[in-house]
């Protein structure tokens, strides 16, 4: 299987605090990888390291065979291939929903305005936000913002999409609409890495589930194994606590 990202011995410290310890991980093309674990286990940091929003302290990240930490490939260029969806949406406040989706393709990829608009409309329609293209972020609800944010990431036509707890900042009744969009994307064969607390989503959609604890990947297996027959004590304990709720 073609590997999109290969991570080897990734380590990240903030000051003296070691958040990620010797992480190694491959993400294959078309795979949906969900990362679960309690707060502070390093899952978000791992995702942010993949996108280089955080600089790994040591280790290697290889993208299609090229080391992105020491490479000719510029960080900006690499990031156009790695879409990111944030917990806090982070829509550009000075632009409309459509503007959010076209600014990247126009200013970064050098596409024409018409071409960018066409692509953006396709994805805004996919997330069900094509009616709101003239709205500003402050005029949208959380769920709507997150769907526009997904369309913005897709408009760059990335190789993989990283989701950093995309539903954690949403009101409960809006979680569904965002998860629905994410399921559609997963079925379409997009490579996705999702940090999430939505266990049902992970169980249903993921090809692989990683359980992280204290900066290490404790278990990496299919959702079936992780959720029904976890091998590690810590995984069992975490799932027991989470699923009880």
């Amino acid at each position: 299987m073609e590997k999109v990202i290969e991570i080897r011995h990734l380590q990240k410290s903030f000051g003296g605090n070691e958040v990620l310890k010797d992480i190694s991980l491959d993400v294959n093309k078309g795979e949906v990888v969900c990362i679960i674990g309690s707060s502070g286990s390093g899952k978000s940091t791992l995702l942010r390291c993949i996108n280089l929003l955080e600089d790994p302290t040591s280790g290697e990240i290889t993208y299609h065979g090229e080391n992105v930490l020491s490479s000719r490939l510029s960080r900006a260029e690499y990031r156009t291939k790695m879409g990111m969806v944030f917990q806090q949406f982070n829509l550009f406040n000075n632009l409309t929903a459509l503007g959010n989706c076209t600014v990247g393709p126009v200013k970064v990829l050098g596409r024409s305005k018409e071409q960018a608009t066409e692509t953006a409309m396709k994805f805004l329609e996919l997330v069900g936000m094509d009616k709101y293209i003239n709205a500003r972020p402050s005029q949208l609800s959380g769920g709507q913002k997150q769907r526009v944010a997904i369309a913005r990431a897709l408009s760059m036509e990335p190789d993989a999409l990283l989701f950093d707890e995309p539903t954690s900042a949403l009101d409960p009744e809006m979680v569904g609409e965002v998860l629905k969009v994410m399921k559609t994307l997963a079925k379409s064969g997009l490579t996705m890495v999702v940090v999430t607390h939505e266990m049902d989503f992970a169980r249903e959609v993921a090809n692989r589930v990683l359980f992280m604890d204290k900066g290490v990947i404790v278990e990496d297996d299919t959702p079936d194994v992780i959720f029904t027959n976890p091998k590690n004590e810590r995984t069992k304990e975490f799932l027991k606590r989470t699923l009880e709720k």
Partner: protein
Amino acid sequence: MLLSAAAEMSFWEWTSSIVQNYWPLLLMGAGITLLISITGTIIGSAIGLIVGVVRTIPVSARDSAVKRSVLKILNFILTAYIEVFRGTPMIVQATVIFYGAAFAGFYMDTTLAGILIVSINTGAYMSEIVRGGILSVDKGQFEAAHSIGMTHIKTMLNIIMPQVIRNILPATGNEFVINIKDTSVLNVIAVTELFFQGKTVAGITFQYFPAYLIICIMYFIMTFTVTRILKAVEKRMDGSDSYTIHGSQTTPEQEFKVKGGTL
């Protein structure tokens, strides 16, 4: 004869006589005041934008030693500029620059000197306003821009600065109003702005109170008008608080009214 007639004139007669006889002079003074404060604020804001942006360039350990040291030196120079010009009175800056240039054998046109001094002075204040504006933009906006492959420059141009400019507009307007008033100190280097002209009229007529009262009112009219205009501009920049639903031909475009932000 003239003196006795003058002594018999009341305050109101003096005031109207000054207005009638000296209005072209006073109006020209007001014109120079506006010219210097407008150009000074515009150039000062431009300086402030550039300095503010340069002072917020992020430096990371990955950057080359050359880039880091250049930025360090630049930062030091800019900080010195801001501290010196914010830490000394504009009236003193005016005299030092104007007479300093003359001392070096360079005789400046007084109006040009006025514009230069106000620009540099405003630039120092605006730099800090812009820097504060940039720092107040949510970190997530930078991260989102980086995540779609924007470099720092592209991020600043397309995402951050449009928001900063909107946010610092009230402070910029405030600087403009301050400049209208503070250009009066330029009379010390004989710039023919409104206060200088008022002083001239007062000296000719020996009627200090009516002359200064007239220019006081003129200053207030100018600042008040400018404040109102800026309020209107701010409101316009905020845009309408509703948006149109982008519909197909079968569903007519609807207008959604949104109050207070979210639906």
